[in-house]
């Protein structure tokens, strides 16, 4: 993996990971033709995974985090980028998802967005990618806020570009909610700054410990924790702060949905882990606070309530959106249980869920490209007309259920082991029971697309073009591959989990 040679650029890879898409976005805005904008975006997004993989290889090799001081200003004064195992892993996930759907995007975007707006779409796409990568790579609390806002603002535009007239309303709702979330986060960071006088994550962590000894500061720190907890939870769509998500996913352009489902919540989850484990975890005894309990309850509520909503949905995109909320519940559950197995499961599920959900949304994007709808009634019998598309959908769907031999099984297995290690047998049953609900909602759409008589629009549908099928099957193949070869997901996750838990008090 480390055979890639970057020459003199080697030490600057961390900043390149953010700067390349940022300037790419700027350049794209000057290109008025959709196809040119697409080509440039494609080139940019394909460079990013290479950088991310190089970083991961280096971190795994040395076992030490890569610290990049911007402008050579050292830590507490300047902004620092810090790439440890967890960050490198999440960077790989986000950049790879960002790249793999680009070949799919051209036709889909050309069909769903008018020509002059297409290059805006690609610009926003790169800007969003910049923000998400920035959240993960930065070691600075305020810088993370800036990137959070960059990605969020770009996301609002991406959603608003959707063809459906409810896209605007959905984007507006998400804008309000996203702003509330970001505000809560920055209030929390502000409180921490008052207490510690620094914005660097590592620095906050070391100074927080002594500060807490002062009872006056203790209350401020607890309040900061509450604000950051809720603010970030809103961005990652934790129940009951999830309601913005189904509409945002349902009415965004197909490619944007696939991209956001795979990456946006993942970056927020990363931020959550970073703050809770690497900042507060070191200074506070989190176990003595109600945070894990609250998180367990909300995660389990998400696993069940969102899954039930998915069962009754008639819009396939909304169904998958509800399923995403449930899957976020799994990830957060593993974080709340906070032992090595459960955290490994959660981290592995970040990648596994990204792969599976992106595949599912891409398949729906291909259907939308052919028949212009993802309502169940219109999709009836489409499996017979688009067997390759819906075949990939079925494979990824089986993965989502957590069937052995697929990626979904791996993460649920470690979550289950983690729950047993934590002594919560009841939680094992809940994980399994909510998987059964996913069997129902995936089973329901499978029945619609394969066994129902074809609808009017399905009768004339054709198989999706090759540029759509290749990314789709790449991801569907990865669903199966990651179910057997767990080196890339579980091994890295286990190391990251070990580091995270090692620092915790």
């Amino acid at each position, binding site marked *: 993996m480390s055979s890639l040679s970057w020459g003199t650029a080697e030490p600057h890879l961390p900043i390149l990971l953010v700067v390349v898409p940022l300037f790419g976005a700027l350049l794209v805005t000057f290109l008025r033709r959709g196809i040119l904008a697409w080509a440039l975006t494609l080139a940019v997004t394909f460079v990013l995974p290479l950088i991310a993989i190089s970083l991961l290889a280096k971190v795994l090799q040395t076992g030490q985090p890569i610290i990049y001081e911007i402008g050579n200003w050292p830590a507490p004064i300047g902004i620092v980028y810090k790439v440890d195992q967890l960050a490198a892993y999440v960077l790989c996930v986000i950049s790879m998802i960002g790249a793999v759907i680009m070949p799919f995007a051209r036709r889909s975007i050309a069909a769903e967005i008018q020509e002059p707006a297409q290059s805006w779409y690609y610009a926003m796409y790169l800007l969003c990618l910049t923000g998400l990568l920035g959240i993960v790579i930065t070691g600075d609390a305020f810088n993370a806020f800036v990137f959070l806002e960059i990605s969020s603002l770009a996301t609002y535009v991406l959603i608003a570009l959707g063809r459906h007239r409810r896209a605007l309303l959905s984007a*507006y*709702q998400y804008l*309000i*909610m996203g702003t*509330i*979330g970001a505000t*809560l986060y920055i209030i929390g960071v502000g409180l921490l700054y008052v207490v510690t006088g620094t914005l660097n994550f590592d620095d906050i962590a070391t100074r927080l410990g002594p500060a807490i000894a002062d009872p006056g500061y203790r*209350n401020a720190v*607890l*309040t900061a*924790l*509450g*604000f950051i*907890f*809720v603010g970030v*939870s*809103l961005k990652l769509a934790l129940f*009951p*702060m999830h*309601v*913005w998500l*189904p*509409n945002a996913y349902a009415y965004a352009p197909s490619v944007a949905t696939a991209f956001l489902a795979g990456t946006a919540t993942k970056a927020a989850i990363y931020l959550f882990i970073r703050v809770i484990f690497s900042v507060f975890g070191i200074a506070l005894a989190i176990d003595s*606070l*109600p*945070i894990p309990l*609250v998180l367990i309850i*909300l995660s389990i509520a998400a696993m069940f*309530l*969102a899954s*039930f*909503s998915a*069962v*009754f*949905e*008639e819009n396939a995109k909304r169904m998958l959106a509800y399923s995403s909320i449930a899957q976020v519940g799994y990830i957060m559950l593993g974080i709340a249980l906070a032992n090595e197995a459960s955290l490994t499961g959660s981290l592995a599920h970040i990648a596994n869920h990204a792969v599976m959900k992106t595949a599912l949304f891409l398949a729906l994007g291909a259907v939308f490209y052919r028949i212009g709808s993802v309502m169940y009634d219109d999709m009836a019998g489409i499996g017979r007309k688009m067997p390759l598309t819906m075949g990939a959908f079925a494979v990824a769907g*089986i993965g989502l259920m957590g*069937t*052995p*031999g697929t990626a979904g099984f*791996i993460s649920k*297995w*470690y979550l*289950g*082991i983690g729950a*047993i*290690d934590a002594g919560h*047998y009841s939680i*094992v*049953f809940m994980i*399994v029971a909510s*998987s*059964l609900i996913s*069997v129902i909602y995936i*089973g329901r759409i499978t*029945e619609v697309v394969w066994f129902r008589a074809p609808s009017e629009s399905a009768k004339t549908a054709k198989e999706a073009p090759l540029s759509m099928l290749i990314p789709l099957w790449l991801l569907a193949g990865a669903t199966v591959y990651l179910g*057997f070869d*767990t080196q890339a997901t*579980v091994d890295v996750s*286990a190391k990251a989990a070990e580091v995270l838990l090692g620092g915790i008090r």
Partner: protein
Amino acid sequence: MTTSLIIPPALILICAGLTLPLFALVRLRWLVLLASPLAALWIVLTLPDGIHLNGSFLGQTLVLVKIDALARVFASVFAIMAFAGGLFALNQKSTLELSAAFVYAGSAIGVAMAGDLITMFIYWEIMAIGSTLVILSSGRRGQGAGLRYAAIHMLGGVLLMAGVAGEIAATGSVAFTAMDLSTIPRMLIFAGFLVNVGAPPLSAWLADAYPEASWSGMVFLSAFTTKTAVYVLLRGFPGTEILIPIGLFMVFYGIIFAILENDMRRILAYSIVNQVGFMVTGIGIGTEMALNGAAAHAFTHIIYKALLLMSAGSVLYMTGKRKCTDLGGLFRTMPLTCAFGIVGALAISSFPATSGFISKSMISDAAGSEHLVIVWFALAAASAGVFLHAGIKFPWFVFFQKDSGLRPPEPPWNMLASMALMAFFCIGLGLYPKPLYDMLPYPVDFVPYTGAHVVYQLQLLLFSGLAFFLMLGLLKRTMTITLDVDWLWRRPGHALASFLDRFGVYTWEWFADAVVRGATGVRKALYQHHGPKGLFGRTWPTGTMAFWTTVTLGAVVILSYL
């Protein structure tokens, strides 16, 4: 521990199944269908005992291929079955069914050769997917049944997964060895196995789903799912006493419902439950002879049940009819199919000189030598019952009885050939059981052909045969159960049987009603809250979203202060 490079036989069949759709040429497809099972069989038979392939998964060392005597018995009969089934199904138009059937057969071999719990579980789940696809591929009729089947096996898989995860967490070992029912994870594993074996209270899935498969699909289905479950019970829970009553229940459940049934393939489906009941009882008895008997009976049962279903499948293929009342008199134009069906029927009835005789008598003898009097009597009575429902009823109503006016020709050569192969095994093993006895896990000092055995079995069969024809009129007209059971159990049994029958029907209906009512109620309640208009399904106004965010924030902060 030697680890040499070998191809897992399970993968040969699974790969053959997965690549089957690529072979557009019919002849090439035939070659794959016939050659891959033979290759698998050859590896199974030539591989020496021991561990042959390790792998690493989930941080555990897995034993992907391990073989011993017990595994070889099951793996080889599964491979034989895949070959015969493939030969029988050469004319099957649905590539999906053949692909699924081969993946299904391959994973069954995988279960038999799995050396640890995780490998076993993974193959187990692939098997569930494969078998579901076999049922689904039969078209419209199969859909409801296939989805119900999938739901039941998903439940079994979930129990098993929870059990396996718990067992590994508790013991730290993935080894698949004999267990007892001392811990919750082991009980869960046991329950997962029992779902597949067709144990009460979920016995009904089998007769519900299998007959909805196509004419060839059911031949595959009859062989693998229940018998892999028998295998894992043999390996994991030999001598678990609760299996004796479970097995006896299955034995009689199968007989009673088979006698009441009119659909020829459903009769045979019930008789699978019945026959597997014999094996489960044998596992419960748990002596070396009983375990040998259970393994041997699984081997012979797969072959003669396949033969019966092939002959029923041929009739279905040629006539399109499946009800006993629509069939009859087919011996005129399908004499070979009829003859093969009769061989299968004799074998399932344990007629001397057939394979059923040399295997089933081991189980009842084991019960006798353990002085389990009630079990012995129950098995004896059940043997007579088997002859009634499968041994005579099936061939009589399909091939003889009244003339239905149907004049179908014999099925194509390949179907006849695979029936001939199975019939050869039935009679060959009946006359010369040594090769099978040599394969069994424990040394066999059992002699099937003693005067007492033969005379006893013939008496049993003759009298039940006599009863069948004497009471044929009653049996045909009313289809009641009391008559047969009256003969079996005499007076006291009569009341009990009719009570059980009524009780069974009432409780089942009550249960089904309650389930349906409960499910509708739950669905309604869920829909109310989660449907598009429900609290969790609709889009909230932005203010409501913000409100709940505030509530969560307040809750977290206040709880932190407390």
